């Protein structure tokens, strides 16, 4: 569904990602692992169109999207749930969700989509009018995921969904992720937490200094010594 | 560190250019001497503003306060109290310096950001013009007419024409030299540090308050002195010209066009734009008033869009391309 082909990308002319190739099949749940600064966030920002590729290609459903604007990509269904949640703090939960579905394709069916999201997260339903800034970290993560679903994502890219959450909330969020996967959503899970990701993703890529160090089935990645060295920076 | 400054002082080119400039009144008709005198006024003013606005990166819109104090107060002291204008010049300069120190202190004490600093200085400038227009002592809205310039040097008179030109040339040279001196002294280095990253400067122990006040006081005193001389040259202390925030805006734009933070940048901007504006005003002023300001505006917008760091860096790049072999660093 999403193919990354020899991608080089970075900021201000300095490459952060060197020659990355990866694929995510339809309905798959793929993990993207790596230590801090390995380039995980840069990669999903490149997929979102926030970072322009210096060379290489990104294809979505067979179509080259390397030069597409971020808006067009959201409309096509490539949706990111950013690291640190980035909910709009001075807007209500309802407004945050409405903004999630603001792209032209999702806009028409917002009421139905909203019902679905609120069914998934009953906690949000209870406080629709509350400002997002006053929510706990776990609730904000629910909202951020809900906002991503409002966009009618075809590929949902979650950047560090477990960051800063209590174990209970992490468990809850990952149950939701499993459920979305079971319903057929394609998911790219970006995580630093190795074991957690390997439990939920079928296939993984491990990034090290902007390159793919290890790739394959979760079990293979778990047992590959290079995975450990990528994490320890050896 | 001061090497460059002494080099400038010893430089035959510098003194040669100055000497050549001083010959101008013998060569050119008085109309052009007048235009060049005005240009020198703005060279001096833009250079003095540049010390705070360019080198320290603090866009101050309060410069009209200092120019206005120099112009209106020294004139009022002469006309109303009979104070010799040289003494008036000193008194005005001292008051301007104190005002400058106060503004710098407020900026520091209340930790104003860049934007707040622009706004507060603009508010001060507006207040200054309201005060002058409402104060009878300072001439109110109608301004103050100075006695005829008979060339009595002891009464701060230069005999108009060429005398005034030399006076302005000296002032402009002083302002530019002071800029060169500051840029090559520790002060210039600290001001640049403040401009580039005030928090970091503070963290490494730069005494920000001290350098901000020093820069502002130097800038204010120079502007005030030029203000006094400008009023004398015009023989009319006009509040709508000398106390209006518009004069600051002009100066800021000249400095921006020439090159902010550079010793010769503001001078370049003023020397290019003032003659252009004056010639336009002379030719079309009666049919199209405001044309010269209009052109200034267009030029500054174009320069900012094309070469945001001003014309001086652009000229230097061109020069380096034309004569790469002889370039001495």
């Amino acid at each position, binding site marked *: 569904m999403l193919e990354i082909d020899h991608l080089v990308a970075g900021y201000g002319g300095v490459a952060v990602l060197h020659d990355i190739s990866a694929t995510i099949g339809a309905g798959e749940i793929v993990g993207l692992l790596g230590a801090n600064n390995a380039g995980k966030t840069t990669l999903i920002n490149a997929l979102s169109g926030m970072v322009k590729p210096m060379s290489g290609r990104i294809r979505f459903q067979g179509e080259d999207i390397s030069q597409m604007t971020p808006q067009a990509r959201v409309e096509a269904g490539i949706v990111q749930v950013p690291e640190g949640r980035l*909910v709009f*703090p001075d807007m209500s939960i309802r407004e945050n969700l409405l*903004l999630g579905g*603001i792209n032209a394709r999702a806009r028409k069916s917002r009421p139905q989509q909203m019902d679905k999201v609120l069914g998934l997260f009953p906690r949000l339903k209870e406080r629709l009018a509350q400002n997002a800034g006053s929510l706990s970290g776990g609730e904000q993560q629910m909202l951020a995921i809900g906002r991503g679903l409002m966009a009618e994502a075809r590929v949902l890219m979650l950047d560090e969904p477990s960051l800063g959450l209590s174990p209970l909330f992490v468990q809850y969020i990952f149950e939701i992720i499993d459920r979305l996967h079971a319903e057929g959503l394609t998911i790219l899970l970006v995580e630093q937490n190795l074991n957690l990701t390997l439990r939920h993703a079928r296939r993984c890529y491990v990034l090290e200094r902007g390159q793919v160090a290890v790739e394959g089935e979760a079990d293979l990645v778990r047992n590959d010594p290079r995975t450990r060295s990528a994490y320890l920076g050896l | 560190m001061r090497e460059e400054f002494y080099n400038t002082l010893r430089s035959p080119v510098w003194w040669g250019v100055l000497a050549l400039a001083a010959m101008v009144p013998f060569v050119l008709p008085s109309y052009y001497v007048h235009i060049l005198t005005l240009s020198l006024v703005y060279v001096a003013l833009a250079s003095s503003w540049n010390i705070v606005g360019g080198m320290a990166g603090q866009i101050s819109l309060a410069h009209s306060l200092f120019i206005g104090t120099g112009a209106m107060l020294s004139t009022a002291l002469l006309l109303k109290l009979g104070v010799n204008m040289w003494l008036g010049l000193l008194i005005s300069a001292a008051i301007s310096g104190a005002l400058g120190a106060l503004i710098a202190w407020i900026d520091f004490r209340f930790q*104003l950001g860049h934007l707040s600093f622009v706004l507060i200085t603009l508010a001060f400038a507006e207040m200054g013009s309201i005060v002058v227009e409402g104060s009878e002592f300072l001439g109110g809205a109608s301004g103050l007419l100075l006695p005829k310039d008979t060339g009595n040097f002891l009464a701060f008179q230069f005999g108009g024409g060429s005398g005034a030109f030399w006076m302005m040339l000296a002032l402009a040279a002083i302002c530019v030299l002071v800029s060169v001196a500051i840029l090559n002294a520790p002060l210039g280095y600290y001001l640049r540090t403040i401009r580039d990253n005030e928090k970091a400067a503070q963290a490494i122990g730069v005494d920000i308050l001290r350098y901000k006040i020093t820069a502002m006081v130097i800038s204010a005193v120079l502007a005030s002195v030029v203000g006094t001389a400008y009023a004398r040259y015009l023989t009319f202390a006009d509040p709508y010209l000398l106390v209006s925030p518009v004069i600051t805006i002009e100066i800021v734009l000249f400095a921006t066009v020439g090159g902010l933070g550079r010793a010769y940048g503001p001078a370049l901007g003023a020397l290019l734009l003032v003659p252009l504006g004056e010639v336009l005003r002379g030719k079309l002023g009666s049919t199209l008033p405001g044309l010269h300001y*209009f052109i200034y505006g267009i030029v500054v917008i174009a320069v900012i*869009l094309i070469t*945001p760091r001003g014309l001086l860096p652009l000229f230097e790049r061109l020069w380096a391309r034309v004569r790469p072999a002889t370039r001495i660093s």
Partner: protein
Amino acid sequence: MTELYQALAQGLLIGSTYGLLALGMGLVYGVSGVVNFSHGDFISLGMFMCLALYSAFSLDPYVSVIITVPVMTAIGALVYLYLIRPMVGHQFLMVVQLTLGLSLVLQNGILMVFGGQPARTPSMVESKLFILGDVVLRVPHIIAFAISFVLAIGLYIMLRSTDFGRSIRAVHQNAHAAALMGIDVGRVQVLTFALGIGILALAAALLLPGTPIQPTQGLRYTVITLLVVVLGGMTNFVGIMLGGLIIGIAEAFGTIYLDGPLGLLMPYIIFVAIMLFRPQGLTWRSQR
């Protein structure tokens, strides 16, 4: 006592329009971090366009807005696209200088076309008075007050409950996240700037009846607008309207109770005091 009521009423009426002037600037600052120092000259432009339409077609300023609002909105969009956008992200201070240059261009462009003599644009309601007990109010002021408030409420509703309004607030609160929602941040910035200038066209018509206008007045309007925006906490909607009322009342009290310059200084003194002691403006909850 009559003086007090008079000052309060007059201040409230004029202050509401100041608030409207400042809302445009606050919105623009909120979404693109740009402070437009030619704001007041755009007000001038709006006023002189009304004057031109009066001279040519005897249009009342209240009618002229049908033409001036769309024209000024378009000018605003062009100015943002071709002058300001190339500078955004460069250096904040260069935008200050750029808009100062633009201010000179506008002010003197107007001067070249209309000349420097103070001019008036007559309106049918210009000299009508409204007497309430001992308080005498000019009808144009009452119209300005009513329209400003209706417009402010309209803007408020727009920001709260339309997609465009929510996009504006989203870009203000987190531009990166807004882009990830599929919002075209650049487009929101252009439209907001255009909207801000369009509002000025309307405010210009409201301020016009009975007021002599001069090309050089722009800077003072800019300063008043800045005072209001800063008082209101830069981007807080209610704060800005409140700031407008405070500056309006300060001005009215200053001119009625204090002689000469001190009266005119009133708004500035209040502004400097608030800047220094409440730099976040009048609002208590900090907005990000």
